[in-house]
């Protein structure tokens, strides 16, 4: 098994608060890995560290074979980040956003335009191609955001809470898009606070709680270790402060 992300002992504190307290992570190539956790668990911080946007206090990581500390540029060449808020330019049109990204990734002008057309069609945005993103619905923005991430297909795609704030229909659509990318072999590391999302998309789920990975496995494994209960039960058992002791007992086998 080869891994696109390998991280060891990642620690990060903000103003005395230990947000990440020694996170180990291994994301298999061509898998969809979900980082599940409640608000404030440190999911976004971990993504930002792996995307070179924040420096960890301690720990080492390689992303697509590039050392995070010594070769951040190599990491940046291998990733695409779709943040918690759609990372697109609202003042520009959908097409302009895509062409701009193509140019920034040094596609020739013509190739950038062709690629934009392809992506607009693939992501169901052809009709809105020449209107400003400001007028897009939440679902359209996220789709454009993903399209922008796919201008040049990266080995690794970060999706930070891709469906937070979306209505159920847009969420379904976006799940379809992510599944499609995964089928094409893109490695996806996504964060979510929705159990259903992790269950639907991910081949591996890791539960992040209070800065640590408290459980990891396939959705089925996690469920079976909770005696066949839903992933919700697993999650609540793990992240409820009073239930920590029970959880430790129940998940001895699941903790790495």
């Amino acid at each position, binding site marked *: 098994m080869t891994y696109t992300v390998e991280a060891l002992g990642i620690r990060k504190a903000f103003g005395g608060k230990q947000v990440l307290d020694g996170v180990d992570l291994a994301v298999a190539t061509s898998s969809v890995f979900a980082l599940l956790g409640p608000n404030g668990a440190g999911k976004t911080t971990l993504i*930002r560290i792996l*995307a*070179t*946007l*924040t420096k960890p206090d301690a720990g080492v990581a390689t992303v697509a074979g590039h050392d995070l500390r010594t070769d951040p*540029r190599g990491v*940046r*060449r291998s*990733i*695409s*980040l779709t*943040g*918690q*808020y*759609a*990372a*697109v*330019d*609202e*003042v*520009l049109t959908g097409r*302009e956003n895509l062409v*701009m990204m*193509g*140019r*920034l*990734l*040094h*596609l020739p002008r013509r*190739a950038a335009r*062709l*690629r934009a057309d*392809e992506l607009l069609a693939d992501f169901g945005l052809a009709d809105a191609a020449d209107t*400003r993103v400001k007028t897009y619905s939440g679902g359209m923005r996220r789709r454009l955001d993903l399209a*922008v991430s796919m*201008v*040049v*297909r*990266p080995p690794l795609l970060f999706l930070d809470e891709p469906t937070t704030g979306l209505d159920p229909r847009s969420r379904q659509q976006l799940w379809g898009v992510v599944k499609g990318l995964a089928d094409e072999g893109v490695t996806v590391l996504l964060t979510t606070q929705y159990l259903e999302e992790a269950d639907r998309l991910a081949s591996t789920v890791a539960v992040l709680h209070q800065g640590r990975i408290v459980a990891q496995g396939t959705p089925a494994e996690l469920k079976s270790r909770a005696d066949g209960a839903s992933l919700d039960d697993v999650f609540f058992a793990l992240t409820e402060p009073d239930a920590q002791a029970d959880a430790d007992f129940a998940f001895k086998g699941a903790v790495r």
Partner: protein
Amino acid sequence: MTYTAATSSSLADAATDVSVMIGRGLRRSQRDPEAFVTALMLPVVLMLLFVYVFGGAFAAEGGGRYAQYVVPGLIVLCAGQGAGTTAVAIATDMSSGIVDRFRSMPIASSSVLAGQIVASLARNLLATALVIGVGLAVGWRPVASPAQWIAAIGMIVLFILAMSWLAAAAGLLVRSPEAATSATLAFMFVPYLSTAFVPAGTMTRALRPIAANQPFTPVIETMRGLWMGHTSTGASTVHEAILAVIYCAVITVLSAAGASYLFRHRTAA
């Protein structure tokens, strides 16, 4: 068809990054009708206000019309307003997700700021051209030679660059567009405490040294000296120009260094 990211990072790539970002900056300012109209209305309205409403009450030196005096001051005032727009534009950018995306891409991060600065320069030069045009229409009659015109424009470009970088640093420092708006109000008021609208000698004793020595004054006096043949401070144009260039260079270097540092280390909320 498959596409792969280019792996080389040559000077040509960096040039592409910068030109793409400049295109983005220009498009964005073109599509911000409110700021755009303000930027273009301000010079016209202020010129008319100062020349026809206040101008009669100001005894301009040599008994000339007030338009002869006020043009450089209005250019600086409009550049102050333009700097405010730049600070807000950058703070807005930083609070949106797109900058995180740029920063996680293999592109020269300085190109993002460069795009904003060049867009700022373009907006401000347009406003300056309007001040000059309206000035000529209401009776401003500079006596400068072509070489002096070029020097005056060079002074304006240097000054706008300094203001734009200062605005960029301010916008990055305060983070939110709302805070940037209030932080840059100062840019609008500092010119009043210079020789922009009245000579320092006419102010109260306490304000005179401030007005005579603050950075905007030599910039204004350099333009005034080049266009009208004499400054309002009594110092030579060359003396004012040397001071002005030093001020602008120092502000540019410090602000650009500060802005680049902040851009790299500030993490958008």
